């Protein structure tokens, strides 16, 4: 039994598809060219990892999250969250998770404290992490006694993060969690995520901020027009991306034809080379070791570039 729990995926989707026009043929015919909001999504989020879910607006991120939470019904396929089927045990799933919606809204007349109390009561689980989270996100007792309508966007986001995590959920689903947080609070939030991961909890979050995904995520999935275009760990994704290389030598350029991953190479008679390099830089460095290198620039691998490469028109 214990082995089964360890092996269980936190989230697993199988051909998950959502087509908003499928149940309304008239609408469908008027949108004949519109693709499904989500098509054949197959992902597995391992228990205990931080999983980033990336894509531009309209790519299907929110649709996926809403399908997992039971807000939407799949047109085809299915999914399990913490081993529970999204079609049959949505309430059971929501008992085990914490959720931060994008652009979260609260009952504005209530104080922050009342909002957290009422949402904790609705969750039915004690708020074991609230004090810690309040401290880490610097929300004071005086602030919590004010009505939410007086809160800035950042303060609302902090309350949103706390309500999602205060009951120490097995899985937290966070939609654009760092929006509105200042850099210091973003750092505090990343540390909170690291701690949750260390405690064996799973974090699934969507984001537009690629630097934060790169900073905190173990693996990422990238969706485009409702389809999965990449699913791998962040380091592999970075290693695969093509980086711009600039090389200047005092003398002739070395022979680089055998260097794996080198492409788009341009050379000039004065010992200047520009190229794109994919994968391990070791063979490239070995190939230029005998040359009189005067300048070498290998652009750092960034998730943003990998992301943009995946979004280049086919």
């Amino acid at each position, binding site marked *: 039994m214990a082995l089964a729990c360890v092996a269980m995926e936190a989230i697993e989707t199988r051909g998950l598809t959502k087509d908003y026009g499928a149940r309304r043929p008239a609408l469908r015919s008027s949108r004949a060219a519109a693709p499904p909001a989500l098509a054949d999504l197959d992902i597995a989020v391992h228990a205990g990892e931080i999983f980033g879910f990336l894509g531009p607006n309209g790519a299907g991120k929110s649709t996926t999250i*809403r399908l997992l939470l039971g807000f939407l019904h799949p047109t085809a396929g299915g999914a399990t969250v913490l081993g529970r089927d999204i079609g049959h045990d949505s309430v059971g799933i929501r008992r085990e998770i914490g959720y931060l*919606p994008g*652009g979260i*809204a609260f009952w504005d007349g209530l104080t922050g404290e009342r909002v957290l109390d009422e949402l904790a009561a*609705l969750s039915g689980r004690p708020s074991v992490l609230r004090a810690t989270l309040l401290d880490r996100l610097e929300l004071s007792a005086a602030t919590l006694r004010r009505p939410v309508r007086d809160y800035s966007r950042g303060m609302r986001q902090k309350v949103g993060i706390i309500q999602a995590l205060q009951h120490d959920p097995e899985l937290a689903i966070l939609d654009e969690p760092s929006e509105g947080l200042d850099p210091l609070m973003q750092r505090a939030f990343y540390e909170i995520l690291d701690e949750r991961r260390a405690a064996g909890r799973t974090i699934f979050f969507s984001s537009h901020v690629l630097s934060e995904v790169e900073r905190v995520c173990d693996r990422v999935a990238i969706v485009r027009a409702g389809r999965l275009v990449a699913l791998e760990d962040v380091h592999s994704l970075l290693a695969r991306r093509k980086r711009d290389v600039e090389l200047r030598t005092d003398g002739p350029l070395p022979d680089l034809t055998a260097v794996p991953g080198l492409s788009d190479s341009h050379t000039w008679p004065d010992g200047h080379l520009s190229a794109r390099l994919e994968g391990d830089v070791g063979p490239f460095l070995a190939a230029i070791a005998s040359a009189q290198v005067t300048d070498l620039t290998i652009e750092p691998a960034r998730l943003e570039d990998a992301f943009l490469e995946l979004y280049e028109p086919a």
Partner: protein
Amino acid sequence: MNGALFMHLWRANRGRLLFVSVALLGWGTVLPVIYDAFGAQFRQLFESGAIPSQFAEFGGGDIFSLSGSVAVGFIHPIAVSLSLVFAVGFAAAAIAGERQRGTLEVLLSRPVSRRVIYGTMAVATALFVATTTGALTIGALLGATLTDRTAELGAGNLPLLWLNGVLLFGAFGAVSLAASASFDRLTPAVGVALAFVLGSYFLEVLGSLWPDAAGLQPYSLFHYLDAQADLAGLPAARDFAILGAVIAAAVAYALVIFPRRDLAAPA
């Protein structure tokens, strides 16, 4: 029914409930007092022919008796407007309003099924309607006591009147809540609910004042509030059954439609 959600709804609405209840209590109290003070003059006025006799039958009763006056008071625009604060205002906003504000997201992310959310809001609507209708009924008793006409009112039958009123405004509440469960925005939900109530009211008033339109009255839910018969201890079981059937149909519709709806991300 979810206790935590119910307490949330209660805390959010108790001030408004107190205000509306006090207003309806006052209105209910005034009716017997007006009858006691001006009943005889009203009778003379109508008998003089200065006012068409149909006006005396507004509300399904004669206004020359205490029970008839109370009956008119129950469907007077003032009482109806106050009662609709919860039957339409609260019920139509219960789900569609939360959805429009974005707070339904937070509710639905808790381990509470949509049916339970709907059921809790339906219970809250019923409780609020029962309380406001109770205030109106108690007001009528208070007014009758102040004018020493308790026996004339048939006070022992007031619970029947209360029940009939709860079923009427409960039916409007159920229809409003069903509309609320059907729309993503508040405006269409309130629009559908108000159109239903106003249409119903129009048919009842038209049938009261224009004999040729009397055949339209059965299509109005107000037609099934027969306060005089209730106070006489002779309620029509058919009236109660029809109002109960409307409530049951609206609840069944909402219980089917709400869990099946796709709730896409707010625009």
